[in-house]
């Protein structure tokens, strides 16, 4: 157990190194970045009702909860449970009592947890969960695929997908501020790609505790358990459920504006920016647009640069916030697009890519919107594959069925 400040401690990650005299920079995996960010947020609630967590391991997330279990958290407790279902249940118990909470999972663990993922959404508890995106089995496959968290798109959670380790840490801190805002009160899922981020170490700016304390005021959950006799989550007639769902819609609708406020506060507090819900790249005059999520966006940018050198007016969009779906932003960015390739690292059998299914209607009338299933099952999507997508898109007279890109 270490009691040192995470922002100034190599011991916290076990293998962090100071660099360039800036002792906040640490060389950590995204799993560890997530655990350190969660620990900072946990300690920041020591003046509130404390912190609690239920944790259960699953590859490739395990290192995150292992590090969390090795932290000393004032007014906090981590419960080592027997399943993901109970991990979320323990978090719900803590959260209902007004504590700040965190857990992490992946793939089949998320599938097993699903009932309680929905419950956390319906209870309107600002639980933050880090998910490492991994292919659902059987057959068992450990590599990156977004299908596990995208299957939870209707659970009433905010969903953020990250592109690097810094973004994972920043998103977890921001997730508490966003989810705990009284206008929102929603759980937040912070997603990262298996191994590409989870086990890859990057220099990451992990702030000092006092800085996080300034950014994250103590959680004040308005509907937490008190001594008052009432039942939380009991029975509803349809009329009451309509009311509860309307409130859930209003909370989701409040997210974009609150998120902008969180971005402003984040930049002011930490001195760096927090990425937008949709991250554009060379979109000013783009006619050919590739839309992707997670780490694939980095590869797409390389291909866009190459296409630009060939004189193609190419651009890219990274969908970072998937719930609530930033449809207005996407529609606005796609306003001038003539050809749109939507890359899905997931598969909804019987439909195609899930992002495509949701975003295809947001392109202007007359634009060709083609779906590419790329990296399904975690195949390594390289620039050459994106080149193929661009060539295919350029040669189309109309959109066709979702195109399964075999990358192996």
């Amino acid at each position: 157990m270490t009691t040192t400040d995470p922002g100034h401690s190599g011991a916290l990650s076990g293998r962090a190194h100071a660099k360039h005299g800036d002792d906040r920079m640490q060389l950590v995996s995204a799993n560890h970045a997530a655990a350190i960010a969660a620990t900072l947020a946990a300690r920041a609630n020591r003046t509130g009702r404390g912190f609690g967590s239920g944790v259960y391991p699953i590859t490739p997330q395990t290192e995150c909860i292992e590090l969390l279990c090795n932290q000393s958290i004032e007014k906090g407790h981590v419960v080592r449970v027997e399943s993901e279902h109970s991990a979320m249940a323990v978090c719900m118990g803590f959260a209902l009592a007004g504590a700040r909470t965190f857990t992490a999972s992946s793939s089949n663990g998320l599938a097993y947890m699903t009932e309680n993922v929905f419950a956390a959404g319906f209870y309107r508890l600002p639980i933050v969960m880090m998910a490492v995106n991994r292919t659902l089995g059987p057959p068992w496959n450990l590599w990156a695929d977004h299908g596990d968290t995208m299957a939870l798109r209707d659970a009433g959670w905010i969903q953020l997908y990250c592109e690097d380790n810094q973004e994972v840490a920043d998103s977890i801190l921001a997730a508490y501020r966003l989810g705990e805002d009284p206008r929102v009160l929603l759980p937040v899922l912070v997603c990262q790609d298996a191994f590409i981020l989870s086990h890859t170490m990057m220099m990451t700016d992990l702030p000092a505790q006092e800085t996080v304390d300034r950014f994250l005021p103590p959680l004040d959950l308005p509907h937490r358990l008190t001594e008052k006799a009432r039942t939380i989550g009991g029975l509803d007639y349809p009329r009451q459920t309509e009311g509860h769902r309307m409130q859930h819609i209003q909370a989701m609708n409040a997210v974009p504006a609150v998120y902008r406020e969180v971005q402003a506060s984040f930049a002011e507090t930490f001195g760096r920016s927090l990425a937008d819900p949709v991250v554009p790249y060379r979109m000013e005059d783009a006619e050919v647009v590739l839309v992707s999520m997670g780490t694939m966006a980095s590869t797409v940018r390389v291909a866009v640069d190459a296409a630009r050198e060939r004189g193609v007016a190419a651009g890219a969009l990274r969908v970072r916030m998937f719930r609530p779906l930033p449809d207005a932003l996407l529609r606005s960015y796609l306003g001038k697009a003539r050809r749109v390739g939507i890359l899905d690292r997931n598969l909804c059998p019987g439909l195609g890519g899930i992002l495509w299914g949701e975003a295809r209607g947001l392109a202007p009338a007359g634009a060709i919107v083609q779906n590419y299933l790329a990296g399904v099952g975690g195949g390594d999507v390289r620039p050459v594959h994106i080149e193929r997508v661009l060539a295919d898109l350029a040669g189309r007279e109309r959109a066709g069925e979702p195109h399964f890109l075999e990358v192996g």
Partner: protein
Amino acid sequence: MGALLSSEPMLGGMAQTASDRAEPVLRAGNTNCGGCGMSIGLQLLAHAAADTPIQLAIPACCGIVTAGPFPYSAYGAPTVATTFASAAAVACGMAHAARLNGEKTRVVCWAGDGGTYDIGMATLSASAERNDDLLYICYDNEIYGNTGGQRSSATPLGASTTTTPNGKDVPKKDILGVMAAHAIPYAATVSLAHPEDALRKLRYALHADGFRFLHILAPCPTCWKSEPAEGIELVRLAVRSGLFAVYEVFDGHRTVINVDSELSKDALARYFKGQGRFRKAGHEVDAVHAQIEQSWKRLRRRAAEARSDEAPA
């Protein structure tokens, strides 16, 4: 006993008095069936928790239908309706949060046999193994009552249910044995026909540290096909016949029998006869009695061992 509060119901064989909680745990106007054993258990809990703040975690079973529709609550205590398998895990979080904040609240899981013996078993076992600081009470009506009467692993041998129309062909799970095997600080069975013993156990279990488990045999007139007014009498017959042993186990080994049983064959026959659920399969009273005698031999041996362990050398 203080003055009677005329506005509150008299249940569980005991009147609500001025020395009790300001309001019952189960409020008047709830929609439980007449003769529901759970209702009586909740009244006893109210007496036991007269001066103790409690929070309830109740899974999606009859016990949460009891609460009534939003925004009403038939529970006179802060209550969380959990998912079916999660009561013990949600309660674990609630109990830790109370401790972190220095609150005296005792967290109580109130769950049926479905949420305890079956779907919640892994969650319950893990919570017991962690020795979470909570009281888990199983009101065992020996059936999935909320879905209209299907067999559970608490349903006794020979009982007809909608999914075992010809009578269940295997006996019920020994839940107290299972829980005691976790070596938890306290595990006990509770007879609604013996309210003084029941209250003593509820009071002890409410305040003891660590994981405590109580098992209440809770008559369900709807599914047992029995007279609502005869529930307490049926429990008394179950105790007299030895079918439901009233005992407690401390730390997984120290066994104390609280109500000795005459192992009455006559009581056993009347127990079966008083319930329509046993009509189809019928019961060989002699055969069941022989099994009861065997299991009591083992129980008495464990109790005697505990006494001799404690005797001065």
